């Protein structure tokens, strides 16, 4: 197979350079949680797969950088670094947290629990569908205590 060439244009969009010229693509991780760096599907604007990259390592440095930049957006989830409060209200659980992206308040249903991914992190999905990654071991003591009921 020929080496794939990927670039990012001025608008931040990923382009795959093939025999028929550059094609706009967006990367999708086939296994976003169990193996985020492997099996990356490049989709065209009609959402058809134009290439499947088994390992980003197989690309040249520039292409890999371009891919990782595009992948950062596609794989983006909120990274929780501190939990300020978790309160159960009627039918709702309200989380007030600090994330790498800024402070955030979100809600989950009472019976929607964070689930473990990859052993060390947990992911919780809010009512709107946004995902929050929490690494219980990296939390401060107060956050750990607040998260205690939800970790394994």
């Amino acid at each position, binding site marked *: 197979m020929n080496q794939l060439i990927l670039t990012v*244009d*001025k*608008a*931040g*969009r990923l382009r795959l350079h093939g025999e028929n010229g550059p094609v*706009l693509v*967006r990367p999708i991780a086939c296994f*976003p949680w169990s193996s985020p760096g492997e099996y990356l599907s490049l989709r065209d*604007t009609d959402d058809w797969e134009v290439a499947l990259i088994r390992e980003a390592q197989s690309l040249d440095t520039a292409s890999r950088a371009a891919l990782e930049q595009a992948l*950062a*957006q*596609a*794989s*983006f*989830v*909120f990274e929780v670094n501190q939990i300020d409060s978790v309160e*159960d*209200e*009627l*039918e*709702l659980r*309200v989380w007030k947290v600090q*994330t790498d*992206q*800024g*402070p*955030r*308040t*979100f*809600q989950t*249903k009472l*019976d929607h*629990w964070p689930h473990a991914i990859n052993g060390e992190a947990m992911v919780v999905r*809010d*009512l*709107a*569908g*946004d*995902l929050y990654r929490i690494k219980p071991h990296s939390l401060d003591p107060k956050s750990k205590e607040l998260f*205690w*009921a*939800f970790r394994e």
Partner: protein
Amino acid sequence: MLDPTSQLFDRYLDQPQTIPRDLRARLENACASESVQLYGLADLDSSLRLCQIWVALTANYFGIARTADRMIDEQIRVIERSRLTKVVEEPGLSCTVAHVLVSNEEHPFATIRYSHRQRQAVSHVLFAIQQQLEGEPAELIDNYRQSMVRPIKEAQASVNTSRLAIVWRLLGYLKPYRWQVTLGMTGASIMTLARLLPPLLTAHVIDDAIRPFQNGTLAASAAWQLALVLLAGLAATFVVQELAAWVRLRTMAVLGEHVARDLRTEMYDHLHRLSVSFFSSKQTGSIISRVGSDSDRIWDFIAFGVVELSLSFLLLIGLSIVLIALDFKLGLIMSLPLPLLLYLIYRNGKTMHGFFLRAWRKWSNLTDTLSDTVPGIRVVKAFDQAEHEKRRFEDRNESFTDECFRIHHVWTGFWPVLMLLVHLMTLLVWVFALPRLLSNGSADLTTGTFVAFLLYMGMYVYPIEIIGQMARLLNRALSSAHRIFDLLDTEPQLVETHRGIQLTPLQGLIDFRDVTFGYDRVRLTIKGISLRIEPGELIGLVGPSGSGKTTLINLLVRFYDPIGGEIRIDGVPLKELDIGSFRRQVGMVLQDPFLFHGTILENIRYGLQAASLSEVISAAQAANAHDFICRLPNGYDTVVGERGHTLSGGERQRVSIARAILHDPRILILDEATSSVDTETEHQIQEALNRLVAGRTVIAIAHRLSTLKRASRLLVVKDGRLAEQGTHLELLGLENGIYRKLHDMQLRLNEAHAV
């Protein structure tokens, strides 16, 4: 007072309720003073940090305004909408990236990023641009605030209600039963107060009869007489106490049932008033549990919770007063630590909450395994995964049991410690009482008073325990009440006309006039359809999946109202018709017919309860159902539906056709009535349908175009529009016609199958 949406914003969403006024003014200024009609918030910047970038549409401009923050100054950029060429959205796990392009693809006018929370509002802005590009300008309906709070509202409709307000509302259901409440509470109060008497009487027996007799200051006969009087008083107190307990238990238990029944009836009545959209947004199980188990918890709360909780506090207050009145110093020793004990119970409740959460989570894991494997048991067996599933279940079972052990470890540790504190108080009372009891001459504390004290102290434990347990019962009841009120507060989306026009009998003339509809009011499913169906016509509705066929039917039977245009039946607007009278004259035969739990007879009679047995048999014969029904061991009395006899798809279909025949509708809707049965059954059903359609206005949806050959007219719907209409032959004659393509495709498919 804030409206519910504003309350939700304030409480749950850390973002502005509207585009900031100053920013809006500057943005509008940049847009040639046009007012902003539609907007959304893109909340992530290019480095994926939270920020505020407003995207907005005016009549002729698209604008982006970034509010100033620590990182950046305010920025406003606008462009004429006519210069935009394309919008591309790239959804990710939690971030959607959208490019708004002008002619030069290399330099988009803007690239915006937003979390799922903002997606609906921003997408509406982008959708409106897209629609304009496609030459179909959408109506600009500002939905920013609504789309933000919608997920929260769906999870918790009356979130702004405080717990206290819920309790008050719940207690409002006691109003019709005032005298029972009074009787029950009086019984409960008498029972509580009567409990305070025995120790007092015991003190009198000791101090006024036994001790004076032992000291020789009272004659034996007088001591006996006094003691017997006091004993009789004691006996009377016990009788009154238990009589009052009986009155209280019986009244409140019955009262609880009354309230639960009233709630169930009110909920069920309300359910029938609600629009179809409510049922599609809520899970069936959630609705059933509200009417069932939630109302049961309310009974528990009314029958026991309300009384037990208020009486426990009454008893604690009563005990403190009596103890202080009996002996001020000793009374204080017992009463002063009371707030501390209650605080400890509250703290323990908080701690236990965490443990219960863990156990609840593990329990969910455990039941998930069950709900996965029991319905999927064939797959488990076929793939020989029984061992794997057993291990999974055992692991989760073990994990849940571990959490239960933890809970038992904590609560079993807490209560003895708490009781030890109560005993410590008792010891303290002894420590302070003994010197006074043993001092010669100046005994300001009598033996009787002290014994009464000891007896009262024993009574302290019960109300404390009850208060500890009640917190959980109260929380559960409040959650249930909340879910019930959430349902009761849901308003039907369709406004029914009071005293609507009754058209009996209907002629069956259907007239759609430029009808527009979208389930979310923005993305249109039906785009300006006009059609007229004459009485007695057999219309075939054809089109690819998702083209809007079933939506047209939903509008015709008024499950939803159009957002534009009008539907008329026999010349009268559908909205002005009496909906009940209209629906009684409309029949539906669906792809997967629903039979209620009950006999076949009851199911056929569903639309016409008064039908005679011979009418039922005639209908079943016309539906080609009579023969197979007679072959069943219990004939027409065979119980079908959920938990009943299993009928095949074709058999159920024929029962539903018999039901429709008996119902004798003027307008008949056949929605894929023969799509899921074999050829032989299809033939029988088709034969039955041919008898059913005679003399009625019929609209039939079918994927198998061959079944629609008898239609007087075929309507082809595509992308929410009426694309073609005519007879089967006319449409086949259309070069590049949609119907012709569908027909050819099915023909080739049949040939392929034949090979």
